[in-house]
């Protein structure tokens, strides 16, 4: 079976600084895939390059068999790939409801009520805060909103960039739990970029390790957790 997202020999650069040096990566349907790596390894760049900004310099990105390497970002989103970019990036002066409305820009208005109900079932806190401005939410609530907003488009693939960033451990756990629920209930494929390696790998079916713009290791999540080089670099070394 071919993968839902298929990345081959992908290269990207900011000016003369090469950020991605030939990445090969797959996300299959119904799978949670985690990418871990240190600061500046190029994780977020990969995430952004999938969405066409910065453009790939070489290599291909295919989604569901279709070449999306040169597509404009808004066309990519229409294929039902959703992204919750780094730093949440919610619309802070707009209310929770308006934020969710923006997420539904590309989806059929007929499903709007269904979608919003699903998101409120997943994150009841958002329902309580429906008329509150995005900027006044707590960090955890903002992350919930960012994920909820991405889900409003009924994605087939969800790209999450560091959803646990800056969250208290308990809240991070809640977010990871929600990701698992989405994956198990709806079979949503998730591509997760994380620094919180332990939780992310425990959650993932498969994982990749990125160092300096290249993939150095890959394997099942459990497998990677046991690897001594992963343990040394990402699990015991940091904290």
């Amino acid at each position, binding site marked *: 079976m071919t993968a839902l997202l298929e990345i081959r020999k992908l290269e990207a650069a900011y000016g003369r600084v090469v950020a991605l040096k030939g990445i090969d990566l797959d996300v299959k349907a119904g799978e949670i895939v985690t990418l871990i790596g240190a600061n500046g390894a190029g994780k977020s760049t990969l995430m952004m390059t999938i969405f066409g900004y910065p453009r790939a310099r070489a290599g291909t990105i295919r989604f569901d068999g279709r070449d999306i390497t040169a597509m404009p970002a808004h066309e990519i989103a229409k294929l039902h790939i959703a992204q919750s970019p780094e730093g949440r*990036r919610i*619309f802070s002066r707009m209310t929770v409801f308006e934020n969710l409305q923006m997420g539904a820009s590309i989806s059929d208005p007929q499903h709007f009520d269904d979608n919003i*109900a699903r998101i409120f079932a997943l994150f009841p806190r958002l329902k309580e805060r429906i008329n509150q401005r995005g900027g006044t939410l707590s960090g955890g609530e903002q992350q919930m909103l960012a994920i909820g907003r991405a889900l409003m488009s009924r994605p087939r693939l969800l790209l999450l960039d560091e959803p646990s960033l800056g969250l208290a451990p308990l809240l991070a756990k809640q977010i990871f739990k929600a990701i698992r629920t989405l994956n198990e209930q709806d079979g949503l494929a998730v591509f997760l970029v994380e620094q919180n390696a332990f939780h992310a790998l425990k959650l993932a079916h498969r994982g990749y390790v990125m160092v300096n713009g290249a993939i150095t290791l890959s394997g099942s999540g459990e497998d990677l957790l046991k690897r001594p080089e992963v343990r040394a670099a990402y699990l015991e070394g940091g904290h």
Partner: protein
Amino acid sequence: MTDAATPSPPRFAFGAALKSAALSAVVALGLFGLMVGIRTETGPTGSLIYWTRFGDVALLVAAVFLGRFLRVLAFGDGPIRLQRLVPARWQEASAGGERFARLMPGRNLGGIFSIALLGFALVAPILFFNNRYALDLGILVLTYVMLGWGLNIVVGLAGLLDLGYVAFYAVGAYSYALLAQNFDLSFWVCLPLAGILAAFWGLILGFPVLRLRGDYLAIVTLAFGEIIRIVLLNWQNVTGGPNGISSIPRPSFFGIPFNNDDDGFAAVFGLDYSATHRIVFLFYLILMLALLTNWVTLRLRRLPIGRAWEALREDEIACRSLGINTTNTKLTAFAIGAMFGGFAGAFFATRQGFISPESFSFVESALILAIVVLGGMGSQLGVAIAAIVTIGGFELFREFAAYRMLVFGGAMVLIMVWRPRGLIGTRTPSVFLKQRKAIAGALVGEGRG
């Protein structure tokens, strides 16, 4: 506890205040010594003549010394808190207003005030029928209200800082003047054409600046405004250059001219002829144009395009990843904002009867932008109030002549200190859900599925 609740101002010693005041006086002497102390002018023979005004310098320095002395004595050296300047009673009153507004989200104070303002605008020509000055001022204010609302689409909603908005105003004005003079078209035909042409120029500005934001965008739009003005100034055989275009046709009441002839407005409607009829007509015309701008903006805010504008203002990257075409979103904002600028320009040309590039200098752009920022970016009512205050204030302080700008600048600084987000800084959500109804319904939907 009580100390923390009501911090008493740190009392500065007499000596410290004196020292601080002396220091300020020295700085003032350095500044004013040359700026005010020596006055230069070109003499009758072309040579430079100068004379000194040390008396004025002494007065200014004394004023600075005294002011600083009293300020340090009363408030200390640090920043002055608003709480200490505004009496507690006032603060409570304004808080009460906000509480009231929260209690009634549908019909809040702003809504009531808007209706009152609109009602006043509608009856103003009747109230001031014999006061030509008031009517002219009203027309001027309404023109700026409309320009403010038009620019608000670009700056307030879409968050694209445009310092060259006056270019579209100029395009509209010259479009009307040239079309009316050369092709003998009536105002009502020219008005939409002027809007379309201005929108077209909005697109032309929009394309090259698609990738720019913030400061860089501001510089390019500033340059664009100047380019348009300089082209108008130098394209002698079309625009008349610095002489401008005069005897631009006056508007007619759907074909009936406002004159003293037998087929004039007064004769047709059986009224005594009065020159004010045309002024009143112009007043209502600009009021309708401004209201059209407002209505379109309010409608668009509820539509996907308007929401996309606001989302773009908040975060461009997030917009892109949600499938919003940021190119189209920016271009429509530029084009629609420019279109209303063009309408206002056409109106300006027909009201003045004479236009020249002088009317479309950068100061106009800055004034319109000031109105939008003072009003609170994105707030329709705020922009209207700011236009009234700014333009009205300008008139009010006319007798101060050269100091008018000083008063204006001072007022602006004060408003920005007290209300850093503009007069009406809170953004009204485009949808406000009554929690029970709307969401319960959505959850019932889930139960079914």
